[in-house]
């Protein structure tokens, strides 16, 4: 199973990866990006590779934020059907609604526990 983690903090990317593994996901490869622009390029570069199973993205990032990434991904038809979960400190309702409108299936607020990651992510893996 391959996943893409998008966060401007390298520490947070590691923490999220650890939480996914603790949730029982057998990750064969974890792709990483530090902003939305990098993530789009990663998706373009990996179109011929094995399918991604999951994308987790922060919202508040430099260069291109998580909401802009979601909208650009939709426009470019990249990683269609891959579940996206936002992980962010921004619990503001307008952000949540915009993320859902742009294709996010889940939302986790920082700070989070590994159990919360498991509860949000595993149901998406079953239907994917």
């Amino acid at each position, binding site marked *: 199973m391959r996943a893409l983690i998008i966060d401007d*903090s390298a520490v947070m990317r590691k923490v999220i990866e650890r939480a996914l593994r603790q949730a029982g996901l057998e990750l064969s490869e974890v792709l990483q990006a530090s902003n939305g622009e990098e993530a789009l390029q990663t998706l373009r570069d990996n179109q011929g590779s094995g399918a991604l199973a999951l994308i987790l993205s922060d919202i508040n990032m430099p260069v291109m934020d998580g909401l802009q990434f979601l909208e650009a991904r939709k426009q470019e038809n990249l990683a269609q059907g891959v579940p996206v979960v936002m992980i962010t*400190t921004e619990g503001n309702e307008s952000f949540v609604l915009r993320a859902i409108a742009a294709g996010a299936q889940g939302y986790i607020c*920082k700070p*989070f526990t590994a159990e919360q990651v498991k509860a949000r992510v595993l149901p998406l893996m079953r239907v994917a």
Partner: protein
Amino acid sequence: MPNAQDEAVTRLDSAVAEVFETMLARSCDPLEGEVDTVEGRIVARIQFTGAVDGECLLYASQATASVTAEALLGTPSEPHDPMVDDAIGELCNMIAGGWKSKLASPDSNCVISTPAVTRDGLEGYQARFGTKFSRKYSFQGNVFGVVLAF
């Protein structure tokens, strides 16, 4: 009847405790009364803009920052490891975000910046906002400080 500053301090204490308990599996308590100056070489800064204009600074010594990074990552950190600065920035981000999320509307309608981390200390720091308070916290004997100004 608590005043605005007391409420802001209570929200900050709650945000700090929540981040440490959830992400680092450690309790973190405010230090009351006279506290020695915190050697705060590493400083992370988050700005608030919108309904609330202000900033949140988190400052810590190299030693405290290293312990924080190790607690977040679950792995030892190396001297001069860039992950240490990153960890302090992310800690500030989560604390500022937590503090903001506890604000009532319309004050909660503000956005927070991404964290900027320096190693210049707090010398010469001057808040550009009307209300400013500083608070020190300790987890397992490691002390760090937070400044909120808005």
